[in-house]
């Protein structure tokens, strides 16, 4: 019974694997809200097959920490 449900959901998911554009939006929103289960699964499925979006995932994390590091820098303020 559970198996059936999973299969049905998986089929639905496979029909909705996000595009790179949609994936980039989901990766961005990961920093702002909790994604739904479907969004998370779709996102993972896309990332498995897409190097470009995996790079983006790493870059977004880096950018977030870079803003913090910029503020903490220990020298004179920009002009």
């Amino acid at each position: 019974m559970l198996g059936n449900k999973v299969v049905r959901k998986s089929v639905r998911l496979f029909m909705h694997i996000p595009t790179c554009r949609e994936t980039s939006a989901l990766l961005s929103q990961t920093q702002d809200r909790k994604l739904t289960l479907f969004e998370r699964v779709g996102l993972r499925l896309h990332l498995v097959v897409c190097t470009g979006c995996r790079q983006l995932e790493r870059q977004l994390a880096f950018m977030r920490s870079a803003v913090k590091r910029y503020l903490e820098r220990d020298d004179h303020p920009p002009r």
Partner: protein
Amino acid sequence: MCNGGSNAMADNNSSRADALGVSPGEVEQFRGYLMRYALLQLRDQTSAEDVVQETLLAAVEGGDRFSGKSTVKTWLTGILKHKIIDQVRRQSREQPLLQGEDDERSEADVIDGLFKADGHWQNFPANWGDPGNALENKRFWETFETCARLMPVKTARVFMMREVMELSTEEICKELDITATNCWVMLHRARLSLRECLETKWFGRV
């Protein structure tokens, strides 16, 4: 909470416990940090200097009392944040987020330009190697500042509220009178523009 009673806090950090603000020297060391903070958000030297000056004054005069419960830096940041939000409200009254259609359209094009009609990347994001190395490089920070300045005005306003002031989407929506969806779209745009700029001006070159 901050009633100024001096004996209540005397056991801990007595030099600050009089709750009459802190010494000018003590707050002055945070000016650089506060300036960077204000400048990223406000993008205007004069308004940034104004809010930082007001913050330091308020701190020294004890208008906003230091309770000793946080660090001086956190406390100063809290004062600055309030002053910046007042400024942001003023800015968004003068340049409302959802008006000025030309502006809005050109900012929306940022995303369109990055993807093909079928949703694939025009150019796949490159491998940045170990981007952590850049954090030690002074010139990287100049590039970072340039890219922050190049972000479209309204997009940048939302992005900095999220990343610098660390407001939640809900708080940003309330301040700027936009929907959550709107907010996420603008943050997406902001992050991809910043990414694009850093890649073109820095990571694409090393």
